[in-house]
């Protein structure tokens, strides 16, 4: 149940057996099915989620009813509305299950306790936030400066099995291009 999380943490820090037990005891395991919501717009995001198995994605809906995909999460990734989680304000995002998933959830109170009690966990979290910030900066740069072809190429270079697991209209939304443009780009690439 905790294999992916253990492996993920070990990439960054080394926890003692005792610290690992403390961490596990502060985690809420939850299995979810495709199309269920982990979080809906308007609720406060009280928990961060680690994905042991499956896939989720986060998105907002604008006033015209258009969907804007913010993030995808697969095995070994974390997903949350961090703005809501850290500021305790209503979420502007929905987090929906894309594939049946097994999640490990940590609420705000337990997260604070773990950060205080386990220095290595605090270091792990800091490194995750650093990586997340860099990824977000790259995403903004890509969105502002790249062509549709360049955006698509960069996506599949970094996440080769993305395309096999994510419906095309969601990929298009994530890249900030229309589904028709994405079809054209993919069609050109296959030739």
């Amino acid at each position, binding site marked *: 149940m905790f294999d992916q999380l253990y492996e993920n943490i070990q990439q960054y820090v080394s926890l003692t057996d005792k610290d690992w037990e403390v961490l596990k005891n502060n985690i809420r395991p*939850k*299995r*979810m099915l495709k199309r269920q*919501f*982990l979080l*809906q717009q308007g609720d406060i995001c009280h928990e961060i989620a680690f994905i042991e198995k499956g896939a989720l994605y986060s998105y907002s809906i604008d006033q015209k009813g258009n969907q804007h995909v913010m993030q995808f999460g697969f095995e070994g990734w974390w997903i949350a509305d961090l703005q809501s989680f850290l500021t305790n304000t209503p979420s502007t995002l929905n987090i929906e299950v894309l594939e049946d998933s097994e999640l490990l959830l940590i609420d705000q109170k337990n997260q604070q306790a773990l950060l205080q009690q386990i220095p290595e966990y605090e270091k792990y979290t800091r490194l995750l936030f650093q990586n997340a910030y860099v990824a977000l900066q790259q995403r903004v740069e890509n969105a502002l400066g790249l062509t549709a072809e360049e955006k698509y190429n960069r996506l599949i270079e970094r996440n080769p099995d993305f395309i096999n697991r994510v419906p095309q209209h969601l990929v298009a939304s994530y890249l900030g291009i229309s589904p028709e443009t994405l079809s054209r780009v993919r069609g050109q690439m296959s030739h």
Partner: protein
Amino acid sequence: MRVTKQSIAIIGAGSNIGSAITKHMAGSKCRLLLFDRDIGKLQSLANTITEDYDDADLITMDCAHSCSWEADIIIMAVSHNAEKEIAENIREVATQKIVISITDSVDGNLKKSKLDPQTHAAKQLRNRLPHSKIIKAFSPGFYQQVADLDGEELFISGNDKEALEKVAKLAVSAGLKPVIAG
């Protein structure tokens, strides 16, 4: 008011108390995950609820472990002995979850009743589920098999204040009147 739907596991849903709870939760906008060893009773209950409540969201499951894994809150409407076995079964997926144990009787003085979190049974359950948030609950309506539980009092007790508040809110959404007994 919370938008995201909560999932509630009801273990022992086919029992008299379990079915009373399930029927009352059916209109609460939660997703109900129902388990009982008596598959016939479970299916009969599910059919009844589906007929009576158009928008009930429920599923019958064949395993208490799976039921509890998907749940946000777990209700145990089973005997004390069955509770022991189920607690062992669900322990790894009940961590950090609210587990509501339906107590089977109270004395006249609620503070000295089986709702008291310091009773032997409550301590046993906490020992078996050391990282869950145990709430003891009792409603006279469950035992009197009152057809309409609207407005019935639900006495709850536990050591976790936030968990008590959450269960109180859930009780209100199910049309019950929560009374925090300790």
